[in-house]
């Protein structure tokens, strides 16, 4: 009995590479990937098929894994998701030879046999004992082949004597990989999930901060005006035999103004640092960027220098007067507190507030219609924390996780 962990590959290959064979396995994998948020296109699937057909993927599961990843995923931040889908889809394929016999619909195989086998061959298989016998023969053949080739990876022979070669499949299709350690080692590749820290769903860290920055830059570079393109004008004028030909290009224009309000103190400090670094790194891209700090929630005042927070408070009303409504407002905070701190006057943990936090945030949102709230808390927890729910409602659902993709979504809402 062949128990090699990659015989499912032959199973796939049999089904994929035979011209009339259904692509069920691969298409299912393809759609699972699409559901999993990786969006491979048909072109890419066809490329993968073409590569399989050309025999690029050799003998083992990891070959198939590497090849399909190279064909279908074009972004390393999606590698981790790919690994997960791959593991889910091909879970338990180690016993795939059994699966080959059990899962492949019998009538499909029969039909294939009818389609592809000559009368003579069919008669010989019948003589062997029908379908069961055929499968058994295949199994034996696989085993024999492995023994003979000392663990190397070899094709199943296509000699006329082999019923499998005679199936008319691409001979590269029925391929058996070696059983050695190489395979076992590689089989774990997707289980190790080494690309996890490249996933854009995880919170911002030093690695993906660069990616986040790129999103911010893109955000800042929107807006256009016409500008004289001197080089192109000279060039076109020269081509025009000296007659002046003026060329214009759209200006790269940093029109974005941002008010950044950061929750500071306690558990938020690390996140705040990341955020501050990120926005200040992108600072040159903004026309204006102003920081303000608050603690837990927004009340009648904020401050600019955290060390002197009690001495140098800036009234929130002054902020709304000073900075026009063309500013985009970005809050960064975990919004995790007692709901009283939001809805009741005097709810603040630090001081007596005459008006409730919810009143102040509504005022801010009225002045700055373009606003988002970035939350470092994992999204799953949002629904279980009443204050987050409350804040989200106040923000009209414009709360986004503090991840690269969250930032991306958030920024889109700011336009």
């Amino acid at each position: 009995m062949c128990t090699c962990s990659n015989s499912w590959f032959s199973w796939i290959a049999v089904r994929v590479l035979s011209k009339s064979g259904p692509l069920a396995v691969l298409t299912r994998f393809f759609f699972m990937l699409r559901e999993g948020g990786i969006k491979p296109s048909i072109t890419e699937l066809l490329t993968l098929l073409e590569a399989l057909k050309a025999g690029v993927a050799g003998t083992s599961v990891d070959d198939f894994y590497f090849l399909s990843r190279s064909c279908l995923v074009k972004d390393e931040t999606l590698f981790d998701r790919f690994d997960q889908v791959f593991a889910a889809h091909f879970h338990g394929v180690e016993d795939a030879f059994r699966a080959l016999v059990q899962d492949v619909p019998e009538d499909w195989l029969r039909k294939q046999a009818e389609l592809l086998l000559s009368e003579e061959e069919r008669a010989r298989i019948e003589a062997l004992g029908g379908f069961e016998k055929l499968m058994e023969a295949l199994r034996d053949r696989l085993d024999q082949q492995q023994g003979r080739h000392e663990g190397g990876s070899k094709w199943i022979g296509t000699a006329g004597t082999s019923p499998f070669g005679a199936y008319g499949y691409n001979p590269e299709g029925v391929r058996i990989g070696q059983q050695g350690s190489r395979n076992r080692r590689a089989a774990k590749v997707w289980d190790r999930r080494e690309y996890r820290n490249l996933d854009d769903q995880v919170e911002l860290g030093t690695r993906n901060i660069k990616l986040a920055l790129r999103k911010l830059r893109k955000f800042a570079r929107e807006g256009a005006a016409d500008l004289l393109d001197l080089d192109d004008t000279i060039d076109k004028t020269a081509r025009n035999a000296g007659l002046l030909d003026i060329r214009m290009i759209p200006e790269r224009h940093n029109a974005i103004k941002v008010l950044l309000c950061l929750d500071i103190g306690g558990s938020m400090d690390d996140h705040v640092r990341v955020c501050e670094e990120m926005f200040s790194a992108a600072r040159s891209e903004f026309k204006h960027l102003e920081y303000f700090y608050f603690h837990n929630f927004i009340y009648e005042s904020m401050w600019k220098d955290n060390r002197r927070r009690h001495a140098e408070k800036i009234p929130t009303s002054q902020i709304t007067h000073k900075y026009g409504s063309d500013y985009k407002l970005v809050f960064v905070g975990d919004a995790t507190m007692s709901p009283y701190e939001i809805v009741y006057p005097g709810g603040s943990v630090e001081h007596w507030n005459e008006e409730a936090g919810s009143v102040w945030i509504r005022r801010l949102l009225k002045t700055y219609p373009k606003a988002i709230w970035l939350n470092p808390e994992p999204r799953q927890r949002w629904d279980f924390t009443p204050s987050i729910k409350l804040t989200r409602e106040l923000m009209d659902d414009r709360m986004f996780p503090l991840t690269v993709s969250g930032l991306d979504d958030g920024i889109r809402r700011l336009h």
Partner: protein
Amino acid sequence: MADKKFTGTSTYIATDDLMMAVNAAVTLQRPILVKGEPGTGKTQLAVEIATALGHPLFEWHIKSTTKAQQGLYDYDAVARLRDSQLGDDRVHDISNYIVRGKVWDAFESAVRPVLLIDEIDKADIEFPNDLLQELDRMEFFVYETKQLVKARHRPIIIITSNNEKELPDAFLRRCFFHYIRFPDKETMERIVDVHFPKLKKNLLREALEAFYRIRDVPGLKKKPSTSELLDWIKLLLAEDISPEALRSDDSRKAVPPMYGALLKNEQDVHLFEQLVFLDRRSRTQ
């Protein structure tokens, strides 16, 4: 298949997944896009593929001002204008002012070439889109001379990117993709080994130990890469440093010698020294 399989070279260690991506791209004659941390050998890959498969290499290095057209050809209109004013006879033949680009050179190659398009993300966002047709069909049209340039042999195209810009989907769909992950210790040992075959085993071990210790320091602005490790080992050899000097438990030498080759940033050096200092203090207490 007429082409040999790429399995790395005597100076370049290729992991299984890298080989797979390269061989797929070579076989199916599609471009391969290579990404990865700086210093993991993206550009070197093209050189090594060319060497391993015995193909000539054409390198096209992209800058922020590079236009797709420049890879194909340039029409030096200014030179022509000048010539016309000077009454030069060359002016009547426009082909005198067509300057070939790297892609054209690669297309004209008598044997199958390797074409490296280095750091494609440096260029304008539209750059990859402007090359779609050329990379797909491996041909382009020279409007000035009404001439169709067709690749004699489809080049093996290696494209590298540092992730500075996102590349358009239409472009990505046409490529194979490989992300060079930072090598693990095992692979790194093999990499060092092909560069310094005579390196003593214990020196290698201690050097890698120290190297990964530095890489693991949280908050480094620029983590040292493979190329920096190789430079550092070269220095260690030149200065004849003993493996013992690299030991982490030797408290006086806890900062590895010549770490300047590994840490290229003042803040990183400070951060590292500070950590070593704290570490030492906690140990003496």
